[in-house]
Structures are given as C-alpha cells and as structure tokens.
C-alpha cells in the first residue's frame, strides 16, 4: 500500500466533514452539511440534500435552466433550427461547446447544430418587447433553410418583459406550416440545468412525440435510447451493438438524433434510459400514454454494458437475439479482459473522485472499478435525491417553490395506440425479478465511508484534495485547471477532454488506456526545480512506476 492509499483510508470521513464545514459561517454551514454525506450503503434512512439553490457567492459549476434545455436536450438534435430569444451572450456561449456528434444519413440531410441563432435583443426590444423581432427571426430561418422544425428558447430577460414565445410559436407554425415550438426555459426558473431538462422533456413530449402516426416502422424489434448524448461518439458504438442484435433504434433522445424521428418514437416496444436525471420524464410519460415499458441501462463500463445488452435481449425474449448478444458480449469481453490484465496492475488501489453531471459521477465508478480503482468521493452537479438514493425516495422528496415552478404534465392513456401486449410482457417479466422503471442511485453502490457531495463548492473540493489526495479527479472544464494546479490530473467527463468514445466495450478500453496515460505522466516530476533544497512531491501519483 502506498502512503497515499493509507492516507485515504486512515482519514476519518466524519472528522473530515466536520473540518470542512467548520470554515463556513453558521447558515451556510447548516445548508451545506445536508448536501455533504458520509455514505453507508446499508442505511436506508441516509438522506442527502440535492436540487436546492446554490448559495449566492458560493461558486458553483452549475449552469442555468436554459443551458439544460437548449444545450443538453435539444443541442444534439440536427434537424431543428434553435433560435435563442434574448441578448447575445446566452446564445453565443451555447454555440457548439458540447461535443455531441451527429451523423446525417446523406450529405443533403439537414444539420443545423453548427449554427447559433439569436434575436440579439437590444435595449429597444427590452423596453418595447421582442415578439416582433422574434417573428422576423423565425421567418428568416424558415426562408433560409426550410427546416424540419424550429425551436425557440427564452432567456432570462424574456420572462421578465413578458414576451409570449408560445403564442409566437403557434402563430408562426400556422403561417409557415412546419412544427415550431417554444420553451419557457429562462435561466432563473430552476435550481440548475435540471429544470431545463424537465421543461424540454415536457415540450418534446407534448408537441413532437407521436405526431407522425403514418410512418411505417415495422422491423421486428424496435427501441428508443434515452439520455445518451453522443459525446465523443459514444452513441455510434452503441448503435452498432443494437444493429448486431437485430434491434432497430427508432429514436435517440438525443445523441445523433432528429426531431423527425421523435415524431414516430411512440412506435417502439421498449425505452432504455441511460441518464436517468435528464430524461426519465419522457420515458414515464410514454409509458403512461402508450404503454411502452422502460428500464435503466448503463453502457459505461464493460461489465455494465454486457449486463445491459443482455437485459435488453432478455426483454425481447427472442432466442436468436439472445444468442447473438451473448456472442457479441463474449467476443468483446475477451478484448476487454486482455487490456484490463495489462492495465490493472498499474492502477490497482488508486483512488478517484468524481463530481459531474446527473449520472456520470455514478456510471464512471464502474469503469474505474474494472481497473481496480476506488471512488472515494463523488457527487452530482444537478441531480435530485433519487439519483443518489434511488427512485424509492421519490414520494418523499420535498416539493419546493422551484420544483413547483415546472409544470408536471398530466398524461392520459391513449387507447388507440396503447400497447397492452407490452404491459403484459412487463408484468410477466417482473415476476422473475426483472426490474422496470428502476434506478437505485449512486449511494447504494458506493462503499461505507465514501463521501457523497451534492453541488460541491470550490472550498470543499480544495479541502478534499488537500486532505485525501486522490490520484485522479473527474469533473469538467471549469474545474480542470483548478484541480491541476493542485498537482492532481483531472479527467473531463463532460467533453471527455476531446477523447472518447468511452461507452460500450471499445469505449471501456479507450478509457482504461486514457487513465493509464494520465496517471503515469512525467509532468508532475518536473514541478520542482533541481536547485530547490527540499523538493516536495506535489503530484505523488506518478512516482511509483515511471
């Protein structure tokens, strides 16, 4: 055991928490303590505070509601022109900054992802209203591209001056004859991006999903994938697996996707959910309305991917598919095991921390575990309690003003399109402990004494690093240079540091290699100049094996 490993086990997590909290003034301390939990996977009464407002002046990595709606959910969809209604910055900053990839089927296929449309409001629009300008912008976009659809995103000032983007959308839709819809996703509406996900889910569900019932979708096995955003080409790998299994992927919400495919996305037999936080709403609503079952999958980590693929095959219950899937898994796992055997001895016993997203901080723990690394602290940026503690706590989650702000759609069963056959299949499978509508969250899978921290602040991450000295820290670009100044390598799990894909089997291999590279770099050895009298080892990660 290296000194550092000892350190991470010697430290008493409760003491550490006390120390970190002690630096906050009373009120802040009280609030932050609830979002900073020492884990015990067996203790069902353990609660974490999540999805509450960040305290003003405490620096957060969270974005706004608009970012969640436009950037996350609608960002990766290529056949929609996204018009940001507001002053210029909001649009500019969301212009092609996520690394979603897309693959139009032909050269002529629409792809508007590279555009940043904005009404670029000026003071006269703020004073006299911006609806007229918005209408003009919509007409322009229509004339320029004749796009499949147009979406309008409201930014903060819009809500305040009272522009009715929905009325504008309806009017323009009637006039231009394409689908046009607006989102009331002003940045202040919610606690974080998460509110924007919900708002996006609602609108996509009510204005897009199911509007094309004519389209013939008649392959034998049909599925939607949800909550996969095709960062670094993750979805492309998964699409290949599904193809090999004989499944038609009808729509993906929303990596490598089109609005057009959402319109007939109700013609599937199954929805699988990757990122529970951002997309569970649509999955739930589709089940209510159309009777399509959903369950949670995870394609981050080779073992998790194998399990998820086999579960999908078992759901369909088709012998041929099960056989093909097992072959696929065996073939791929062989390659994966070879790399693990090579990499694991170098990484075994190292520690990781990850603070990111609404599902990644959970999913990536599997990948690290496969190479023998332990996650000693983790947390989300914009998740809710169910993402930590599991869906079982949903009925107990306190509804605060921010949550109430976002409409919960009332969805009713649509008799003519409802699929009782799928519900029967679900009931049958449930008897054999096949889980649907499931997500157990991050906490049950982390060890006792690990720290679970929601919306971690700079102060907290600095202290954690100083005291626990993890070997690697996973977060995003905003934390990257802070953490690296501490001498700890940071792996970006939003944009993958321009690497990837990391999903599925090849993705797992890519990730192991990447972590090996990061933990064996020579850089940290050079921190101290040779003429320094007592060299301090700053990034002690490397000294053992290179």
């Amino acid at each position: 055991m290296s000194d550092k490993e000892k350190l991470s086990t010697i430290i008493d997590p409760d003491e550490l928490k006390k120390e970190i909290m002690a630096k906050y003034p009373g009120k802040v301390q009280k609030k932050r303590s609830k979002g900073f939990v020492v884990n015990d996977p067996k203790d069902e009464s353990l609660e974490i505070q999540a999805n509450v407002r960040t305290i003003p002046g405490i620096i957060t990595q969270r974005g706004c509601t608009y970012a969640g709606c436009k950037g996350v959910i609608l960002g990766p969809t290529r056949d929609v022109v996204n018009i940001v209604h507001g002053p210029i910055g909001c649009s500019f900053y969301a212009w092609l900054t996520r690394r979603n990839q897309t693959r139009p089927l032909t050269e002529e296929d629409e792809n508007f992802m590279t555009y940043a449309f904005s009404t670029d409001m000026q003071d006269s629009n703020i004073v006299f209203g911006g609806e007229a300008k918005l209408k003009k912008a919509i007409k322009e976009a229509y004339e320029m591209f004749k796009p499949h659809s147009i979406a309008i995103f409201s930014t903060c000032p819009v809500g305040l001056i009272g522009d009715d983007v929905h009325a504008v959308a309806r009017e323009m839709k009637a006039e231009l004859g394409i689908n046009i819809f607006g989102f009331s996703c002003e940045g202040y509406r919610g606690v974080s991006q998460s509110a924007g996900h919900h708002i996006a889910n609602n609108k996509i569900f009510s204005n897009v999903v199911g509007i094309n019932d004519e389209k013939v979708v008649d392959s034998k096995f049909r599925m939607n994938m949800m909550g996969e955003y095709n960062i670094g080409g993750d979805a492309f790998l998964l699409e290949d697996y599904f193809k090999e299994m004989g499944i038609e992927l009808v729509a993906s919400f929303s990596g490598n996707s089109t609005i057009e495919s959402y319109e007939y996305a109700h013609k599937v037999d199954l929805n699988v959910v990757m990122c529970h936080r951002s997309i569970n709403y649509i999955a739930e609503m589709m089940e209510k309305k159309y009777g399509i079952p959903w369950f949670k999958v995870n394609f981050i980590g080779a073992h998790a991917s194998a399990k998820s693929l086999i579960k999908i095959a078992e759901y369909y219950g088709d012998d041929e598919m099960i056989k093909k899937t097992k072959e696929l898994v065996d073939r791929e796992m062989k390659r994966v095991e070879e790399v693990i055997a090579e990499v694991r001895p170098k990484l075994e016993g190292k520690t990781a921390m990850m603070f990111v997203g609404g599902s990644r901080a959970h999913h990536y723990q599997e990948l690290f575990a496969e190479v023998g690394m332990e996650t000693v602290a983790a947390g989300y940026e914009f998740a809710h309690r169910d993402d930590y503690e599991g869906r079982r706590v949903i009925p107990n989650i306190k509804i605060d003003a921010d949550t109430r702000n976002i409409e919960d759609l009332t969805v009713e069963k649509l008799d003519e399109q409802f699929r009782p056959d799928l519900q029967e299949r679900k009931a049958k499978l449930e008897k054999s402990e096949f889980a649907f509508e499931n997500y157990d969250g991050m906490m049950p899978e982390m060890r006792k004494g690990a720290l679970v921290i929601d919306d971690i602040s700079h102060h907290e991450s600095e202290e954690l690093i100083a005291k626990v000295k993890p070997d690697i820290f996973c977060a995003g670009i905003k934390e990257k240079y802070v953490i690296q100044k501490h001498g700890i390598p940071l792996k970006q799990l939003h944009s993958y540091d321009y690497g990837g894909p990391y999903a599925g089997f090849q993705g797992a291999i890519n990730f192991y290699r990447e972590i090996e590279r990061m933990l064996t770099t020579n850089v940290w050895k050079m921190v101290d100049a040779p003429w320094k009298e007592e060299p301090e080892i700053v990034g002690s990660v490397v000294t053992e094996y290179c």
Partner: protein
Amino acid sequence: MKSPHKTYTATRNACKLCAPLGASMAYKGIQGCVPIIHGSQGCATYVRRYMISHFREPVDIASSNFSEESTIFGGGPNLKMALTNVGNQYKPHHIGISTTCLSETIGDDVPQIIQEFRKEQPDLSHVGLAHAATPSYCGSHIDGFHHAIVAVIKNLSDKTLKNDKIVLLPGMLSPADYRYLKDVFDFMGQDVILLPDLSESLDNPHWHDYKRIPDGGTTPQELFEIGGSKGFIQFGDVFNRGASANTVSKRKIETPGSVLSDKYQLKGKTVGMPIGINATDRFFEAVLEMSGKQMPERYEKERGRLVDAYTDGHKYVFEKRAVVYGEEDFVIGLTEFLSEIGVEPVLIATGGKSNVFESIIKEKLQTGHQPKIMTGADFEEISEQCKDVNPDFIIGHSKGYYISKQLNVPLIRVGFPIHDRIGGQRVKHIGYEGTHELFDRIVNALLEYKQSNNAIGYKYL
C-alpha cells in the same frame, strides 16, 4: 466601401460576446479582486467557461444566483449575500460587480444595494467594491471591459500618493502582451501602472499551494497612485472616444481616459493598438514624450529586426488577400499592420456597431485598397461575403474557424477567444516583438499552405 449586404434580423453565429465577460476579465487584472456577476447563475457559469477554455487557468467568478423570486422582488438580498460570502471566503481586497441583462431589466439599484450592504456588514468595510452596469443589450464584451475599468477608477482609485508614474490603459489584450508592455517600461526605467494588469493573473505558473485569488493585477498601492500620476496613455481609437459597440443605445459612454481627466485632471494620449511598425512607433513616441526618457537600444534593435523580417518575408505576403474580424479597436490595429506589410485586407468585419469604425479604417489604410467593411456583422454574413472576396487567409479568433474550413484557407488565430488551440493567453500581438511573431506566423501559414497544396512537395521556399 461599405458593401451592400442583405441585412438580417437574427444574429447568426455572433461575432461578439456579452458585456459581463469583458467586465470580469478586466476585474481579473486588479490584484485581490474577485468578480461577481449580478444575475442568474447561468451567465457567470458561461462566462467562466469561456474564459477558462481560453486561458486554461482557474477563473473564479461568483454569481448572485437569482431565483424566480428575485426577478419579482429584486436581487438586493442575493447580491448582499453574495458579497458577504465572497468577502468571507476569499478575503479579497476588492469585489468587482457587473450586472447582467436580467438584473438591469429588473432595474436593480446596485449603488443603493451597496450602501445597504455597507451598513449591514461593517466587518467587510475594508473590501473595496467596484460596480459596472453591463447589460449586454447595450453593448458587447468590449464595452463591459471599459465599463469595469471606469468603475475601478471611480470606486477604487485615489490620488493620495503623488508620483512619477504613467498610467497605461491597454484594453483587452493577452497576458503575453501585458508582459511585453511591462518589460518595455521596466527597461526604460519608467514606472508604470498597468490598468488593468493582466500580465499574471490569467497566466499563472504551476503552484505549490493553491491560491484562491491568483497573484498579479494592479495593486492597491497603484490604485492609490493613479490620481497622482504623470498622465495616462490609452490604446484604441474607438472606445476611448466614448463610442459603444452598440450605436442603438446612443449613449455617450464614459471612458477610462475621460474619467481620469475629470476626476484627477490627468493629461493623456491616445494611440491605436500598437500592432505593426507605424503603430508601435507611435506608442513609443508617446511613452518617450511623456517620460522624457531615451529610446533604449534594445527596442531600436527589435524594430530593426522587424523591418528586416518585413523585407525578407515581403515576397510571400505581398498582395495576399486577408479577411480580418474581431473587436473594433483590435481589428483596426490588425488592419493597419496588414496593410503595412503589403497584404490587402479585402474584408474587414466587426460585431461592434460604433459609428466611427469605418472612417478610422479608411484613415489607416495605406494603399488605395477598397475593402469591404462590415459593422454589426455576424459570422454568417462574413461567410457569405467571403465567397466574393476570395481570401488567401483569415485572421481572427477561433469562432471563425468554420469559415476558414469552408474556404480551405489558413486561419491565423489572434485575440479572444482561442479555444481550439493551446496558448491563447500567450499569443503576442503588440510591440515590435509581438508584431514580429505575428508576421512570422502569417508568412509560415502561407508557406505551409503552399507546400501542402502542392504535389511536388518543395522543401526549399
């Protein structure tokens, strides 16, 4: 000649950023200053992300985190809480506040809120507070930058200490540029106050112990000396005239220079961005005149080497056609330089909309060239115009990359933001040395282009 291009209502791929970004960048150049953006948290997060991906450094900017409630009852309580928390956690010398479109639309009275905060938090009375109103519907990032400097002068500076220093207001340039300027004054033996001083705080070395507030920036001592200094020199022909990147607002804007003159009766000189030999000569002349110092031999030589390089490289750049875009003052500087080395700037574009851009460009052009000049332009308009002008290269920040890709011509990355290459903070643009680097980069990009588009593969050019 102003080209008759079709005007659009929507902005498609903007060629400007928003005002709190510029303000926060300027505040980062004040020692011990933590910026707060007063509005919803998304703006601060986006601004941080943008600055971080350019500078690749920690960039802490706090937010007053508006909720729906704040949009109804005002953001006072949130701002006060943000000030308190930043004050306690960072122990800053100053806090630099800029407002967002939201808090401005609501009409928050920030000076009033600050007064209340002062009463309620006497323990933080030592923390200086600067406040700039920076709604982005009244200007772009470059306005924000200037407003923040104005705020620093008004709220944080003084003239308690009489001195022989020169105040230098360089504007939005890279840390490498700021370091160059510091060296110039150092070498001349003339004390200088850089306002702001971006030479270090956004390009830090690796640290042993983490620093919540990076080193560097205009010091509190220097802020006290501003009013008692010898005078000031400011870079830029547009914004220092009180123009805004937004003509719609028609407000005559206070400039750092005008405030220095009004508040302290300081005399100042305005020179353009010192890019190219002529512009750098004017800068040195201004410094020599104000300081009474001699031109150091070192810079004579630097200048000489640059002239030598111009003659060496002339055959490669002469009559090449360039598209240039970015902030107005910066573009004006680049244009003068390009025209000086024999490049024809065929399309000169800015997202700003000041009234003075075109006329200044025309003054600066040495040849009889008639470039297309676009103000209030976005990248789609630039892209459309590019098809007619047939450029050999494009010069500007990373956002224009897609145009260079469409046209298959090199992009010389300058200015802000550069987030698709490493080292944006170390790109030097100004002085003889910065010009020299820029010149070499342009020539080499053209040579490389020639080589890689040639079947034979000449290795002797």
